[in-house]
């Protein structure tokens, strides 16, 4: 292992990627909480959100134009995040409406949902490949990227700071929403016992839609943040989607804070694993950790219930 500088650098990189995993993982966990369903098309919600934010910022910042600065940059990042989140929410809503609701109405078996999710996912990313092209597309430079601060010798760039700050805000907002608002209370009630919640006057259908939309908002904004660093492409959803799902399981599927802890942990493991061993072993190490954790704690680090008070 290298010096304190490297340790610090790897920790920061790991937390940055981990925060993105956490943002996506929340979508998996929330939907699992209320429906006991793994929404495998969530990775495509993430991808569509990334493209939404990307096209919006492309429209405002043309190729080869000057890099915006100051307030304009902040405004553009927020705008990109907003449009990304909206695109993600729209995609998630459409997904619930077309791929899940009809099945739920007919009381379809669990397996049907899984197939429906995979089908929706294939449909969405092949359509995106057809419409948006097969090349990777970068988000235009919305701010001048440079080193802002140095922590124990590790340089933190503007970009990492923007990503970390946005992700943190979203995570706090969701935690507050689920733990401390009426909507959150309803979501938890449905997660605990949907039938009973319905009898108590909770509109279960509405809460399910709200949960999907909430997950979509997060994944869309997360997609935009991801595309800032790693560019957007029609296949971009798959790997982060699987990683975020892993993070959700690692922390305890259905558990909001568990997803956050799982995401950050996975990011750190990958960052250090990629450095200490071969970078190509990154995924091997990440999934080895998942298996190891599940062997010891089969329900994840924090347990699996969304229903209990967070």
């Amino acid at each position, binding site marked *: 292992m290298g010096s304190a500088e490297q340790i610090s650098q790897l920790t920061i990189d790991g937390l940055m990627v981990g925060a993105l995993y956490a943002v996506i993982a929340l979508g998996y966990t929330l939907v699992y909480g209320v429906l006991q369903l793994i929404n495998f098309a969530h990775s495509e919600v993430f991808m569509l959100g990334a493209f939404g934010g990307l096209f919006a910022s492309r429209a405002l910042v043309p190729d080869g134009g000057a890099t915006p600065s100051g307030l304009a940059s902040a405004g553009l990042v927020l705008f990109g995040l907003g449009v990304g989140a909206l695109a993600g929410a729209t995609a998630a809503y459409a997904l619930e409406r077309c791929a899940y609701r009809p099945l739920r109405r007919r009381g379809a078996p669990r397996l049907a949902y899984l197939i429906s999710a995979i089908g929706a996912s294939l449909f969405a990313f092949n359509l995106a490949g057809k419409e948006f092209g097969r090349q990777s597309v970068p988000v235009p430079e919305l701010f001048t990227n440079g080193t802002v601060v140095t922590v124990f010798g590790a*340089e933190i760039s503007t970009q990492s700071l923007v990503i970390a700050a946005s992700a943190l805000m979203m995570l706090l907002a969701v935690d507050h929403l689920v733990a401390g608002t009426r909507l959150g209370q309803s979501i938890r009630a449905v997660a605990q016992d949907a039938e009973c919640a319905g009898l108590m006057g909770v509109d279960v259908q509405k809460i399910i839609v709200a949960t999907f939309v909430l997950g979509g908002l997060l994944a869309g904004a997360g997609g935009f943040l991801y595309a800032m660093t790693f560019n957007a492409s029609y296949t971009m959803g798959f790997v982060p989607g699987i990683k975020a799902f892993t993070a959700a399981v690692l922390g305890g599927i259905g558990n909001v804070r568990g997803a956050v802890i799982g995401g950050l942990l996975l990011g750190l493991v990958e960052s250090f694993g990629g450095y200490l061993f071969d970078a190509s072993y990154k995924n091997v190490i990440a999934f080895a950790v998942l298996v190891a954790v599940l062997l010891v704690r089969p329900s994840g680090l924090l347990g699996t219930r969304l229903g209990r008070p967070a």
Partner: protein
Amino acid sequence: MTATPRTLRPRSTRTSARRPVAAMVAGLAMVGGLLAACGGDSSDGGKKEYLIGFQGPLSGESQQLGINAYNGVLTAVELANQDSSLPFTLRIVASDDQGQPEQGPTAAQKLIDNSDLMAVVGPVFSGATKASEPLYSQAGLLSVSPSATNPTLTDLNFTSFYRVIAPDTVQGAGAAEYLAKAVRAKRVYSLDDRSEYGTGLSGAIERGLERARVPFAHDGINPTKDYTSQATKIMADGADAVYYSGYYPEFALLTKALRGKGYDGVILSGDGSNDDQFIRQAGAANAEGTLITCPCSDANSDPAAAGFVADYKKVNSGLKPGTYSGEAYDATNAIISVLREQGTEASRESVLSAFGKVDLPGVTKRIRFQRNGDVEGSTVYVYQVKDGQRTVLGPVSTLVKP
């Protein structure tokens, strides 16, 4: 649960992305078969029609390099079809391999099964070439790659393989010389993408660096999106130059990660990254100053190739030739020159046996082959990104100060 989508999805991506092309190729093959059944005459003034195959990535992440080459083939074929002295017309049958070794054999087999097809331009990528050539050799179908540069390809006893680009041993030696004598690197970080192409190139560079007594570190990383920990590793190594042997989508992300961390050394790559998509995907600010070596000259700035550039733009609705466009054009013209000699009597066997004797002034170089199928002699050029544009600095030999 994770196992289900992991195996299902990538496979489905490929098949669904390939299907339209597969259908197109199958359709073309059927049309070709019908034409052959009708006596081999096409509608064009009763001239005989020959088919020329093309194999390369026409979809997928690295499609730009395949499209560049395809457009070069198209230019040569269009010009030949306008030439009334030719006793035949030509048509292209394209087969998409997405640049993937595992899709190479299927793409090759589609072309082989088409009996009117006289020769193939391609495959474009080295890995796909290695996987496809056994089939071409077995079928006795000539394949001329515009761009597969892995050195070992011509040592594998393929009997129908030629290439119009110098192998990476030439590029690697040139790049190493440039690193040692022009960049004057104190330590080089040689990173490859573990592909057939990447390992061949990095190996050649490292042999050159050894000869020049420049210390280096070797590392490999499979194509990925997240190069942040790799960038940390490179910076911890202290190398003042990084050479990435791989293709532009990954090189763009690596450059982005390195510059994002404030790496101030020299960043280089090879012909697989020699495309404007690199600048676009890395961002102009990050790409600025990056160096790219290529055993290919830039047709756009070579006065001798002005005629080719004009023809290319005319055929391809104003597009400029890209990396491998000139090579693909030369490869196609070499095939056409053999067909021209043989008139309407050409067969796969006769084209293959006559091809080794081709001697043709091409736009990229003189097209003349060694016995193993390698093109004779070649110059390595250095490109640099300046003000967001790829510009040619010149051949390594003139850039190296004695």
